[in-house]
């Protein structure tokens, strides 16, 4: 941990600020949420790493997807993700967001979360222990340091693709696109498909 390294603070204040003040947003969905209360309270105390839970997406920069994502939840995950200020980081929690886990053949659960929103890191396991959350946080620090936690930039860059994937599952989305969609590209793709 280089939290007290003054030189680094002057060199890249933004990065250091993002690293040591991860304000986490999570939905109380999926079984992974049961590991979060011990993580943020007395037993494991995430606050010593600067990780605290916040109430609204506007204040958050770390999005924990705790457990399986049903189609109904996905809608709100996307909306919350789009409301978070950049830079923002997403961590998939448990094996369900990675590949469906034990819900691999469920009809109303999505299998690969990173098709719909960009994910910066995964915590494998069913369930991951609270220690695994800290391992994820320290890995995320390394990624931020090396400039590799760029999920939010990927979302900007490939927004058309993400939006198309979202519409494939959710039908027509009732909110306007966050970034501009490449209309021409879309039409040309349709022509090719025809």
């Amino acid at each position, binding site marked *: 941990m280089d939290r007290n390294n003054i030189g680094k603070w002057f060199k890249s204040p933004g990065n250091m600020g993002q690293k040591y003040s991860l304000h986490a947003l999570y939905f109380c969905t999926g079984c992974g949420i049961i590991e979060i209360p011990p993580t943020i309270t007395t037993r494991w105390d995430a*606050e010593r790493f600067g990780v605290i839970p916040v109430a*609204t997406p506007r204040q958050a920069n770390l999005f924990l997807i705790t457990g399986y994502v049903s189609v109904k939840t996905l809608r709100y995950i996307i909306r919350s993700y789009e409301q978070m200020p950049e830079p923002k980081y997403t961590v998939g929690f448990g094996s369900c967001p990675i590949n469906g886990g034990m819900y691999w053949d469920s009809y109303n659960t999505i299998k690969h979360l990173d098709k719909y929103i960009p994910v910066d890191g995964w915590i494998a396991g069913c369930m991951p222990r609270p220690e695994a959350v800290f391992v994820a946080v320290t890995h995320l620090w390394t990624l931020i340091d090396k400039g590799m936690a760029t999920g939010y930039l990927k979302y900007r860059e490939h927004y058309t693709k993400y939006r198309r994937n979202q519409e494939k599952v959710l039908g027509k989305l009732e909110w306007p696109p966050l970034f501009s969609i490449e209309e021409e590209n879309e039409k040309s793709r349709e022509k090719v498909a025809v």
Partner: protein
Amino acid sequence: MVIVLVLQILFVTLLSCLVGLFLIGLSRKMTARIHWRYGPPLSQPFIDIVKWFSQTAVSHGKLFDAGMIFSLTGSVVVVLFLPFGGICPLRGSGGLLVILYLMLIAPLGIALSAGEAANPYASIGVSRKLQLAFGYELSLLMILLSLMTYYRTVSIVDIVEAQIQSGWSLVQLPLVVSGLAYLLIMPAIMGIRPFEMIQAPQEISSGPMAEYGGKFLAFATLQHALNIYIGLSLFVNLFLGGGSNAGYFLIKLLLAFMVFQVIHAVWPRFRIEQAVRCLWRWPALLAFIGLIIVWVTTS
């Protein structure tokens, strides 16, 4: 002379922001230690502020920006009227009466700004904030009246100087009851438990802060820090004799804060109607009795 005034203004503003942020950090650390946790470093609020300024921020309209600035400016102006040790930039003008009026600007600014966001939780938070202000302003007014009657002045600097000569107001017999009343409304002025229902992250998603992100949250936190400083500074200046120099003043501020922090760490919060009922019953009653005692003894 003008340069000295400008320097004093800058010094007091900057130092009160730093003190307020430090107190927020101390509050988080103390709460953590009382909960048997290790807790964040004392510098955590500063880290948060750096982070918020490096984020993008979503604005919800012109009033959303202007209200935030309005509120922050209101708090800064109140700070300039409060003596900081021996330094008080705006000592010649108005004193307690002006402070009473200016203290309402900060909640109004937040109300304008959060109202523009049209988030229902923000509206609930704002209405709670104004109701709470309505609750403690009555007692505050009576406490300040009894102080002004006792010392026969409206100037806060004169009150501090009188206390340096004759001892703290809190231990002077006619003012003890008013001091107790101020102790009771202090958590409401600072917005800490048991009067923390304005933010209440668990029930109304942090209330007026619900739509703030990025630099707006940074400004809101600065305003909160200044608010804590104002509540404590008023108490220290009016009842604990201020301070002959800045260091002495800060030590008193710190000790007063730690007492309230212990309460903050272990208490739950009231509902808003319980809070208003409580504020209008006990502190208001004490303040009224204090006012009568002062009136009888001085006339």
